[in-house]
């Protein structure tokens, strides 16, 4: 295990180098000179040259890359072109919003998806099975920008139960520590703020959770069905064990492996898929920031955010692989 971790950490560095190279190259493939975009229609050739020099765009590309990597290693991801803000600081400020959203969605998706999948498998071909599938599919076939608006309409406008967007009320008093509102409010023992943050999180998290939830539910169902037919489950039943314990103790554990892979994959989708949710719910995360930056050709932001997302993906994959061994000891990682 220890050796495996070391090996993985080493490959991790290679992966990150690969990603950084890819990001760096890709960003430069986007047509449109950032200097031109920044200066707008009234730009003069001189002002364009000046801004290009300012952004370091007049240097050869490989030199730009080396500078980018050298600075990134020191934690400096550059300065935003449009707003002159240090990218690292802004990522630290905005990423927690996305993490909170993705985490909330993941909780909704797994805690609803897995039980739904188990129940569907156990009550196979029943009314419940078909309904849960239909509900899951409804979620999948509704684009987030539509589902989100519907949720807002129902819960914010008509019922007035929940706010329509943003992380906190407009007049909320919040002194950020980690920028994770829920965590900070707990650290500050401010339960009212926590409740407010939670209320704001519910709708976007549910909207974002629909697709992963559907996939997780379906995957759990099929995986469970497979396992329920295995000999050891029959044996367990034959031994007269309670159905509940057969399912939860024996079947579920074995059924979880593919589910874990899927959950891991969904985390990735959640992080980058949060963009639309963030737009519909005015959520101040990095997804929207990234899209705006792409449109404004704000290279430093695009590079910085992408690299950060990549690091998180890679770490999640590592966790997923380690979880494999915990759930299924037969999988040997350092084989």
């Amino acid at each position: 295990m220890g050796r495996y971790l070391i090996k993985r950490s080493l490959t991790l560095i290679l992966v990150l180098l690969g990603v950084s190279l890819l990001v760096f190259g890709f960003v430069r493939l986007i047509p449109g000179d950032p200097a031109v975009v920044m200066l707008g229609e009234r730009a003069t050739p001189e002002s364009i040259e000046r801004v290009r020099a300012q952004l370091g765009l007049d240097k050869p590309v490989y030199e730009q890359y080396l500078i980018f990597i050298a600075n990134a290693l020191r934690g400096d991801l550059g300065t935003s072109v449009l707003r002159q803000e240090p990218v690292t600081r802004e990522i630290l400020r905005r990423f927690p919003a996305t993490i909170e959203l993705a985490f909330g969605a993941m909780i909704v998706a797994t805690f609803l998806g897995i039980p739904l999948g188990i129940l569907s498998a156990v009550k196979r071909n029943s009314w419940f099975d078909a309904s849960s599938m239909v509900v899951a599919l409804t979620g999948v076939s509704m684009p987030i920008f539509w589902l989100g608006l519907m949720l807002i309409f129902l819960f914010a406008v008509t019922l007035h139960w929940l706010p329509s967007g943003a992380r906190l009320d407009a007049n909320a008093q919040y002194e950020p520590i980690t920028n994770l509102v829920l965590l900070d409010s707990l650290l500050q023992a401010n339960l009212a703020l926590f409740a407010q943050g939670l209320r704001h999180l519910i709708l976007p998290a549910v909207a974002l959770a629909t697709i992963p939830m559907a996939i997780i539910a379906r995957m759990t169902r099929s995986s469970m069905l497979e396992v329920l037919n295995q000999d050891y489950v029959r044996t367990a039943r034959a031994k007269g064990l309670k159905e509940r314990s057969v399912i939860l103790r024996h079947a579920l554990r074995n059924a979880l492996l593919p589910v874990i892979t899927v959950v891991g994959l969904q985390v990735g989708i959640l992080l980058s898929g949060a963009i639309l949710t963030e737009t519909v719910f005015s959520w101040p995360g990095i997804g929207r920031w990234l899209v705006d930056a792409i449109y404004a050709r704000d290279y430093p932001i695009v590079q910085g955010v992408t690299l950060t997302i990549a690091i998180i993906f890679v770490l999640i994959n590592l966790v997923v692989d380690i979880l494999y061994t915990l759930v299924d000891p037969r999988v040997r990682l350092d084989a």
Partner: protein
Amino acid sequence: MATTAVAGHRPIDQAINTKPPQGLWVDAWSRLKKNKAAMFGLVLVIGFFALAIFGPMLAPHDPLKIYDGKSFLPPVWSPDFLNPTNKTGDPQFFLGTDSIGRDVLSRLIYGARVSLVVAIVPTIFITILGISLGLFAGYSGGTIDNLLMRFTDIVYSFPDLLFFVVVMFALRDSFLGDWANGLILLFGALAIVNWVGIARVVRGSTLSIKEKEFIEAAHSIGTSDQSIMQRHILPNILSPIIIITAFAVPRLIITEAVLGYLGLGLRPGTSSQEFFVTSWGSLLLEGQTAINAQPWMLLAPAIAVALVVMGFTFLGDGLRDALDPRMKGTG
């Protein structure tokens, strides 16, 4: 293929316990046929294909024809609560008209074609690439597994959207981007981004299956690796593959809509002679801005997408069950 199987299923069915096992697929078909849900799914999927192929014959109107002064019409049968603008419908437009006066039903029918292609072509590519790489990685293990998985890490950790945006921005004006209103470019981008998911799932399942006794048994009798992968592992990991694939279809249809949302979707067609006139994704997108004023414009494509997704999922589930040897006699 379907008809021959139907013709031949009865004797096989009756002889199932006495004769030596028939081919996997024939056997599966006979089981599939009994599964009403799967058959329903099959009907939906076939209907979808038929709509895509014969659309021009079925559509009552030219999907691009603008009927002046007929914009914004609700369906005649629309209940009042679905009709906030209080216009009266016109019987010749069964699903009403859109904001510039085009027939929604005809657009929906024509849109099936693009959505089918957008969903199916990349799915085939994704599935083949994903399964081969995932199987290979999971089965080989060790360094090969490590390398391949780290490669998927790189592809996977690169945000989809950035990739789409860059590809669409960079290549939109190239010959690739011009081809079929930008469709070919869209396929490529969708496929490149999406194969990783299947590869990882397949690899995960393979890791677990290859430790099973029957694989060891196969090894011990000298079965070749390729044969083990194809004949022993693949059939056992079909269900996650089917699920992911069934979900890939709606995801691709919706991704196309999302790209449109970001201004990167297909170009609108200007002549109904073109092969690709509009897509369900574009219709969903047009519909979402009309949530308050023209709800039916969104309902129609949303229900269409949902039915197709349902079709693929029911069929996929049925296939999964039918292909599972342990399910004999059930379903």
